[in-house]
């Protein structure tokens, strides 16, 4: 909401009217700044985007060793994420894994998930990236 000067003037006039004879410069100022703060506070709540698909893409790579998939999926299952697709390739001793995950019903947001997975990645000595699907859609689909 845009707080215009006109609105401030209106609030001030109403404050003066309501305070009646008690109105002094100080208390009018107080009342007005309080009402403005309230308006400002309402304004600060910013919305999340409704058209977000809620799908994120997890990419992981590094030296192959047992327990990588299980380590990563355990963290995802703990966060109640739904795995939509999973694909893996081995090139010599390196592995690459890509997952498409739905986090709509997860109790964690993408930032918390990234933090969780970073810990897992550190333990497994691999790289894990988590990015929203849109960036791939924008770059590779017209």
């Amino acid at each position, binding site marked *: 909401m845009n707080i215009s000067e006109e609105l401030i003037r209106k609030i001030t006039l109403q404050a003066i009217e309501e305070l009646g004879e008690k109105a002094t410069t100080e208390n009018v100022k107080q009342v007005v700044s309080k009402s403005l703060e309230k308006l400002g506070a309402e304004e600060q709540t910013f919305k999340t985007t409704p058209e977000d698909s809620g799908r994120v893409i997890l990419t992981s790579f590094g030296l192959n060793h047992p327990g990588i998939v299980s380590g990563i999926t355990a963290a995802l299952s703990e966060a109640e994420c739904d795995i939509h697709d999973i694909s893996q390739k081995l090139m010599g001793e390196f592995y690459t894994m890509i997952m498409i995950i739905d986090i709509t019903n997860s109790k964690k947001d993408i930032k918390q998930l*990234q933090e969780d997975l970073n810990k897992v990645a550190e333990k497994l000595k691999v790289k894990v990236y988590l990015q929203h699907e*849109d960036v791939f859609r924008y770059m590779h689909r017209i």
Partner: protein
Amino acid sequence: MPYEFDEILETIKMTEIEHFDIRTVTMGISLRDCADRNIEVTKQKIYEKILKFAGNHVKIAEEIERKYGISIANKRVSVTPISIPFGSFTADEYIQIAETLDKAALEIGVDYLAGYSALVQKGMTTGELELIKSIPGALANTKTICSSVNVGSTKAGINMDAVLIMSETIKKTAELTADRDSIGCAKLVVFANAVEDNPFVAGAFHGVSEPEVVINVGISGPGVVLEAIKSAGNVSVQELAEVIKKTVFKITRAGELIGRKAAEMNGVEFGIVDISLAPTPAEGDSVGDILKAMGLEDVGAPGTTAALAMLNDSVKKAGLMASSSVGGLSGAFIPVSEDQGMIRAVEKGNLSLEKLEAMTAVCSVGLDMIAIPGKTPAETIAGIIADEAAIGIINDKTTAVRIIPAVGKDVGDSVDYGGLLGKAPIMEVRELSPAAFVRRGGRIPAPTRSLTN
């Protein structure tokens, strides 16, 4: 799987290895409703307006960075050219406004706030003259403020009086910040055909035809283009153009996504994506290296201008296809201090000021971040500015000069700012004097190209 394995890995490679990032998300804010007769009221209005709209700017940008895994190198704010709404103030009062802007910028956590500007291509108002007078002081007293002055346009010609005043202003700015390698000059741009929606500092300002608040995005992908050219191998230039286009297309799309999300989350309008290839001092993130990868021994070799022209044109073509909101400068930047490939070419003596000037005729934006000896006379700087402005107005393109006459330094020395501004070796300037020409004053008339109606 809706995406190919290789597509996903390509994006990861771009963002993690090849330095693809969003160079800047810039919020443009109109200050036209902040004017008041009283300087104190004006300052308060400016401060409150910036905090109101850009208070969450940095926080939102950081959230987007995490979500999409693409880093946003800079979060910035641009404002209405200060000389327009506040034309009744004096130089001293303008400096107070600069300090207020600086305070607001530091409070919201942006690295630069640009728009301490004046548009004087046809003539100067009293307020504009006062603002220009205040520039050295304003840049010396603030950390984040960037200033620009437009001295020429295809429609108006070149205001030679302003060119001379600006060259003196540059000298004075250098002197006032002499203790910091004349850093003030790194935040001062002299333009011809300045654009209103440029998100890149130091030349950004929020033009008068822009909406109340807007988000503009500048992408940066020299590293990505360099890798694509390297892996293309020995192909014809036509095929090379194709490779560049495909790469730039993808990074422009990512830029548009980031811009739209940032605008949506800030609850403001989305403006443009500036598809300029903007280098950073990071190794590999260099336009100079791209030119070398195209087959030149070094930047400055005969053929450099042609290679750059092709690169610049391919960037534009890809950007136009990828987004319907392409704007700003949109070309390839060749700032010397911010590009390792360019720095090396200058240090080896392969790249001269004259060759750089020729290169600016085919790309955005001009002689950018060039350090010259501190003893260079103001008239010589005026000659350099006039040359660059002439290239701009005749070719109907934006050109700019961001030049640093580093006090106490000469050829062989360098200035080092660290961070994004990088390091610039002092370049040689020809000692022939244009003094009698630039001191004539007046205005170079608009070229025939201005009569398009």
